């Protein structure tokens, strides 16, 4: 299991477009990937669940990857939150 914290850099927070991209990205890995905010965690599978965390710009989330490809998955998550989140 790998855990890592990320700051949300998109000024609109975790809105529908990055959430869509994030779900699509998570599908590429067999690991279970979850996102956590204020102690509540949801798998990166459901748009409704991710949005319901109401993650705003500047807030911190924890991503947890667990499974065979957990380290590759975490690298992809890292790239997503630090780079791709700039583009939405």
């Amino acid at each position, binding site marked *: 299991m790998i855990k890592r914290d990320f700051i949300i850099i998109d000024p*609109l*927070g975790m*809105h*529908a*477009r990055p*959430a*869509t991209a994030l*779900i699509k990205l998570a599908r590429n890995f067999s690991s279970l990937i979850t996102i956590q905010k204020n102690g509540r965690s949801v*798998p990166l*599978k*459901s*748009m*409704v*669940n991710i*949005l*319901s965390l*109401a993650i*705003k710009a500047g807030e911190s989330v924890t991503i947890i990857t667990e499974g065979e490809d957990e380290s590759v998955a975490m690298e992809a998550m890292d790239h997503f939150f630090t780079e791709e989140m700039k583009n939405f």
Partner: protein
Amino acid sequence: MKGTGVSPGISIGTAYVIRKAPAVNAITNTIEEKDKPAEISNFDKAVKEATGEVNRIIDLNRSRFKPEDIAILETQTEFIGDSQIRSDVQDKILNENLPAVVAVREVIQSMVQMFGEMDDEYLRARRTDIQDAGKRIIKHLLKDDSESARRYTENTILIAEDISPTDALSIDTSLISGIATVEGGRTSHAAIIARSRGIPAVAGCGPTLMEIADNDTIILDGSTGDILVNPDNHKIEEYRKKKKISDRESESLKLIRDKPAITKDGRKIHLLGNISSHTELEHLFECGGEGVGLLRTELFFMQHEKLPSEEEQFEFYLQVAITAGKKPVIVRTLDIGGDKQVPFLSIPAESNPFLGYRAIRISLDRTDIFLTQIRAILRASVYGNLKIMLPMVSCLDELKAAKTLIKKAESELSDSGIRYNSKIETGIMLEIPSAALMTGMLSKESDFFSIGTNDLCQYTMAVDRMNRKVASLYDHFNPGFLRLLKTAIDQAHEKGKSVGMCGEMSSDPLAVILLLGMGLDEFSMPASSIPVVKQIINKVDYKDAKEIYNIAMTMESSSEIREYLQEKSK
């Protein structure tokens, strides 16, 4: 709220919102244990279909939509296929014995409520996405996507995402006093249909339009594109006055309905209408149309899941022929491909659909479809004054091939002892520059010509008018384009053939005198434009129009030509 005014006139009425899902409140019964697996698989199937539907919209419009639009639709598919929605729905089916439809409705309702209580405005607004996803799923669960069963009261203003050609054909437009859509523009089907029926319409209003509720009072201005929701009495009064003035103007135009379109020095011009079904004929004749310059057949085809049979097609042409009587009706054979798709012919995506497999090219390849259509038209030709027009002809060989097939259909009918009009005229639509440049040669085989300016202009100038980045280059006053039109008209006239125009240019008030001066014989347009064009023709001398054309031809830019014409039309 503001959109693009696509059909002029002011309308004050009551909103009727087409949300693409029927009410499911009536279904409350519970299901038995043995039916549960089937309900769950019904749900999965509906999700799959709904996702497929959205993906199809994306695929069909990939070249037209902006990346943002595509992203919105992709987000939609995530909501539809949401794993939390699925597990909640499954829970309700298994533990509360609810049918899938009710389960979906309840799950969506509770999610909508949850999002509604959030303190973030953006997230609150996601309620509509979730509602939309639910509606799409429910629609597929109930397999009911038609608006045909809906009832409208008088003075209804239709509010919709977009009016599909199918919707448009199934709605009783006599009760509709206005149309507003989230999507679309001047050339969307909703706009074309609204103009042809004289209904004020505004398109491209954006998603906020769907916040309008049923029975809201709406003021819609189809000229400016303004939409006012629940306006105060002061505003209503103001618009009533405006409406009175614009209605009076259109009344006075109706007065000239029965006068012929003739220049002051006696040149007679034929004014015809563009229609898609016989239901539009009444309005066309009310506006003074002398016949039909373009009967589009593709909307009729798009309505059908399967290829309509010869009998179904015969019925369609028959109704038009009978209603029009002696007045001429030019029937354009199937013009699909490009941006128009039919369910029964899955044309693979092409990188350049406008330069690809479409219109006559399909007809000459799928001769079964073409022959069926021709037989149906020929059979109906006995009952009226029908003519056949072939779209997208680019060379004489295509025209010859099509005429050979028409001959074949004729001899098949003769052999079976079925009557048809053996003198039926066959003409071509000029929308490809190569054809426009050789109308003289094409005259050997073509009885008449009709210029389709929308495609012809687009092909001549290499501009996709749907592409916002370059759409401003699309301009039918381009001096080169005007010369092309003149060449086409002159060559055809030399061979004694008449030339009409059924594209948007023919109803552009600024273009009328210019076209008249070029020698155009027939103008075909949406019915509501006919009175305006007639007034222009009645006020001018043909010899002056020719002079105006000659002077315009000395100018080097479309803006210069426009300015000159504006000056002349004062």
